[in-house]
C-alpha cells in the first residue's frame, strides 16, 4: 500500500483520457482484448471513453451492440470462456440490471461450477454515482450487489492515475471484474498519467492523506468529499487519515487494520444508501477484527435510504459537512 505515485514528466489527464489510454494500450498489446457495448463505436460511448477506437481496431474488436445488457454481459461470458478478454461497457451502471443475471449467475460462477475448467477473464466497466443531475436511473451506486457476489471482483478508482492502472490490471486479471467509474469526476479531477503501461494491483488500498486522529475509509468519487472534510477538520486540529480502498472485493483488510490501529476512530463513507451498503461490510470487518483498537463508534456516512432523487440530489448525497458531523460523532465518543 502506497500513495499513488505520479511521474512528474507526464501531462495532466482526466479520467476519461486515462481510461481510454488503458483500453487502447491493452488492445494494442493483446489482440484477444475486445470491447463491446452500446454506442461504443462511431459514437465513442456516451462519455467518449472509446472515442476513435473503432477506427483503430475495426468492428470486430470494438463491437457496437443491440440495446440489451443481457446480451452484452452474456456474450462477454461466452467470449471469455472461448479465450477472448472482453471489456464490456454498460452505458450507466443503473442499466446493468437487465443483464444482472448473466453477471451473478454466470460470470461470477463459471469458474466455480466448472471446477476451474472455464474462467471469465472479463471486465464490465460502467459509470456510476451521482452529482450530475442524472436522477434515479443515472446516478446509482450499486456496488453492494457486486461485492456480495462471490466470484466477482469490484474496483472503483478515485483519480485518473489509479483508473488507468486499475483498468489495465482488471483487463489482465483472470477473474471477472466490475469496474465502477465515478462519472462525476470523469473530467473534474486531473492528475498525471504516464503514457506507458502500468498496473495498480487489485486488492490494494492507498492512503490518500495521512492523519492520526480519525480514519475515513472510502473509495471512488467520495474520496474527494473526504478530502474536503479533512481540510475543514484540519482547521479544528483534527488530522484525518483517508484510506482509498480502490478495490472493494477483495478489499484490503491489512490496510484497514493498519489505519484503524493508528487512529482508533473510524468513519466509513459511501455514496450508496446506508442500509445493506458496502460501508457496512467494512464496519463489520472492523467490529470483528479490530474492536480492541476502537475508541469510538464506527460511523457510516452514506446516501439516504431512498431511491436516488433528481431535483433534490444535493440534499441526498453525502457532503463534507455530513462527513465532518460523523467524524465528530466518532471522536467525541
Amino acid at each position: 500500500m502506497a500513495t499513488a505515485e505520479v511521474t512528474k514528466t507526464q501531462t495532466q489527464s482526466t479520467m476519461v483520457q486515462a481510461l481510454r489510454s488503458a483500453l487502447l494500450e491493452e488492445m494494442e498489446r493483446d489482440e484477444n482484448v475486445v470491447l463491446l457495448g452500446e454506442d461504443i463505436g462511431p459514437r465513442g460511448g456516451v462519455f467518449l471513453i472509446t472515442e476513435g477506437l473503432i477506427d483503430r481496431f475495426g468492428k470486430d474488436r470494438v463491437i457496437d451492440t443491440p440495446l440489451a445488457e443481457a446480451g452484452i454481459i452474456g456474450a462477454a461470458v461466452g467470449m471469455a470462456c472461448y479465450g477472448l478478454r472482453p471489456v464490456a461497457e454498460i452505458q450507466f451502471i443503473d442499466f446493468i440490471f437487465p443483464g444482472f443475471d448473466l453477471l451473478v449467475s454466470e460470470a461470477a460462477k463459471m469458474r466455480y461450477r466448472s471446477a476451474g475448467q472455464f474462467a471469465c477473464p472479463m471486465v464490465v466497466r460502467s459509470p456510476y454515482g451521482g452529482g450530475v443531475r442524472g436522477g434515479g436511473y443515472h446516478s446509482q451506486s450499486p456496488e453492494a450487489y457486486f461485492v456480495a457476489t462471490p466470484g466477482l471482483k469490484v474496483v472503483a478508482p478515485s483519480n485518473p492515475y489509479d483508473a488507468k492502472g486499475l483498468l489495465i490490471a482488471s483487463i489482465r486479471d483472470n477473474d471477472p471484474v466490475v469496474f465502477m467509474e465515478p462519472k462525476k469526476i470523469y473530467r473534474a479531477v486531473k492528475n498525471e498519467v504516464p503514457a506507458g503501461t502500468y498496473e495498480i494491483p487489485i486488492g490494494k488500498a492507498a492512503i490518500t492523506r495521512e492523519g492520526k486522529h480519525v480514519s475515513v475509509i472510502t473509495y471512488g468519487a467520495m474520496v474527494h468529499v473526504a478530502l474536503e472534510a479533512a481540510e475543514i477538520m484540519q482547521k479544528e486540529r483534527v488530522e484525518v487519515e483517508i484510506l482509498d480502498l480502490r478495490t472493494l472485493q477483495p478489499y484490503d483488510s491489512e490496510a484497514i487494520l493498519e489505519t484503524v490501529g493508528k487512529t482508533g476512530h473510524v468513519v466509513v463513507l459511501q455514496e450508496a444508501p446506508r442500509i445493506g451498503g458496502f460501508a457496512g461490510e467494512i464496519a463489520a470487518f472492523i467490529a470483528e477484527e479490530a474492536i480492541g483498537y476502537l475508541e469510538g463508534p464506527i460511523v457510516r456516512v452514506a446516501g439516504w435510504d431512498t431511491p436516488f432523487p433528481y431535483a433534490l440530489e444535493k440534499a441526498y448525497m453525502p457532503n463534507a459537512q455530513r462527513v465532518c458531523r460523523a467524524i465528530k460523532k466518532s471522536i467525541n465518543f
Partner: protein
Amino acid sequence: MEIKPFTGQPISVLAYDGSPVTNLDSLGISKDEYLSIYRWLVLARAVDDRGYILVRQGRAGFYAQIAGQEASQIGSALPLTKDDWLYGDHRSQGSMLVKGLRAAEWFAHVLGRSLDPSQGRLMPHGPGRNDLHIVPPSSTVGNQITEAVGTAMAQRIKKRKEITIVYFGDGATSEGDFHVGMNFAAVYGSPCIFFCQNNQYAISVRLQEQTHTKTIAEKAKAYGMDGFLVDGNDVLAVYAVSKHCADKARSGNGPSLIEAYTYRYGPHSSADDDTRYRPKGELEMWRNERDPVVRFRRFLEKQKLWNDDKEQKLLAEVKAELAVALEEAEKSPVPEPMTVLDHTYEKLTPHLEWERKELAAELGV
C-alpha cells in the same frame, strides 16, 4: 380503409404532399376533429421547442425531444379514453399531453418543480399522473413493457372495457422485456397496444445494426400477434391503425404491435452529439420532405380547412398559452429538501426516521 397486419410497406392515409391516398370517409373524422388534431401537433412541437430551450439556458439538466415524431404520438393517443392506461418511455410527452397532462406540469417536470406530478423525482423524460392513468417511466429502456402488460392483464381480470398502451423505441425491442411482455400479452389475450416509435436510431445505433429484420412489425409473428407497420409521420394513418387496435383490444380480441416508422430531428437527448453518427443529408430529407406537422397542414389546406391567417393565429395562441404554462411552472417552488426521504415507503421506516433527524440537523431545520 382496410387495416391489415404485416403489410411490409407502411400504411398511410396521406401522401407526403398532404393529398389523401385513401378514402377519408372511412376514418369517420369530422372537420372539427381534423382541426383539433392539427392543434395537438402544433402544440406538441411548441411544447417541445420551449422545453428544449430550458436546457440550452442551463435551467434544466436533460431533454429528449420528440420533434419529428409528433404524428406518431398524437395519432396513437387520440383513440384512448380517460379510463385507458398509458405507459410512456423517455420520448412520449406528446402522448402524455393528449392524455391530459398539462403543459405547465410538463415544464415543471423539466424544471424539477413541485408542480411536476412526480415532484422532481425523475430526470425529465415523463412524469406520471395517477388520475390520468399515466404511469411514470423509469429510464430503464424496456421495463415499462412488462408493467403495461400487467396492467392490461388486470384490466382483463377485472373485466373492464379498458385498454393499455405502451410506448417504446426501436432500440427497446432488443431488450428481453419486449419479448417477455409481447409473449405474456399474447398468451393472455391482454387488451394492450405495443406502440413502437421506430425513429431508426437508438442513440447512435441504426436499426440495421439493432436487428436483422427489415421491420419491427414483423416481430409480432414470434408471438402469434398482429403487427402493423404505419407511416409514423402521417397522423391520420397512425390514428386509424391505433383506433383499429384499440377497438380490437377493447372488444376482447387481444393485443397488437404497431410500428410507427418515423424519424427524430434532434439529437438523442440534450447530452448527445448526433453529428457523430448521422449520415449527411438524412435529417434534411426527413425534415424538408416528410415533416408530420407540415404534411398535415398541407392536407388541411387542400381540404380548404386552413390558411396562413389561421396558422398565424394558432401559433400566437399556442405561444401565449405556453408562456402562461411556463410561468406557472416557474412559480412553482423547488421541492422542500426535507421531502427527499418521503415516498420511499408508505411510511418512514425507523431507519428513515433516524435519517430524517440527521438531515434536519444537516439542513439546520
